[in-house]
């Protein structure tokens, strides 16, 4: 499996419901980030959680990180139709050299929120 794998691959919910997406990774990390990609657009940074943090909030977003399990989850509360997009987790590894600044992305979760 690849670094930064998201689960599920696709998620379909109704407006107002919560959406939870999970991400697993393999190597030690400096931080883990979540990005959103609307159809036909570039990725937009949503939230970053550092390896020494366990939970972080930003508006309707809640991210958790469990470094012992090498996993993270993104929760979007009270979802809206405008949240329809693909969501990617990306990990930044520890160490310098060519690893410095390098993000490794998973294949993403496609979220569809029905009005």
């Amino acid at each position, binding site marked *: 499996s*690849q670094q930064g794998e998201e689960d599920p691959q696709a998620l379909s919910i109704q407006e107002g419901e919560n959406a939870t997406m999970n991400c697993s990774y393999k190597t030690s990390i*400096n*931080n883990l*980030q979540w*990005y959103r*990609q609307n159809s*036909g*657009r*570039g*990725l*937009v*940074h949503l939230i*970053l959680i550092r390896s020494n943090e366990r939970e972080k909030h930003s508006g309707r977003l809640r991210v958790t990180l469990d470094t012992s399990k090498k996993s993270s989850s993104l929760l979007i509360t009270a979802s809206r139709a405008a949240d329809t997009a*693909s969501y*990617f987790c990306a990990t*930044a590894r520890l160490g310098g050299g*060519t690893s*410095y*600044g*390098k*993000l*490794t*992305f998973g*294949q*993403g979760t496609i979220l569809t929120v029905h009005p």
Partner: protein
Amino acid sequence: DTAVSQTPKYLVTQMGNDKSIKCEQNLGHDTMYWYKQDSKKFLKIMFSYNNKELIINETVPNRFSPKSPDKAHLNLHINSLELGDSAVYFCASGLRGGSSYEQYFGPGTRLTVT
């Protein structure tokens, strides 16, 4: 006030041709990246430049050559295009000196090789 811009947005060309994609950022970042997103949406880093110096060079065919005339620009030139090069190419920028590695992405260039 576009942060990271790419041109062209769409590129349709025939096998064997040579093409370039341009990228510019006005965020004052010192590091720029090229990513390739395949049809399954998997996003893979290709290159990274920091202050015009190549710092990340993944396993990419020699037909791909990045060029950074200054730290605000990173262009991607592709020689002898092949069908498998069809994908969406994203440019991104960030601060290498920062501690977060957060990156800002351009809108992408959809390359179709026929």
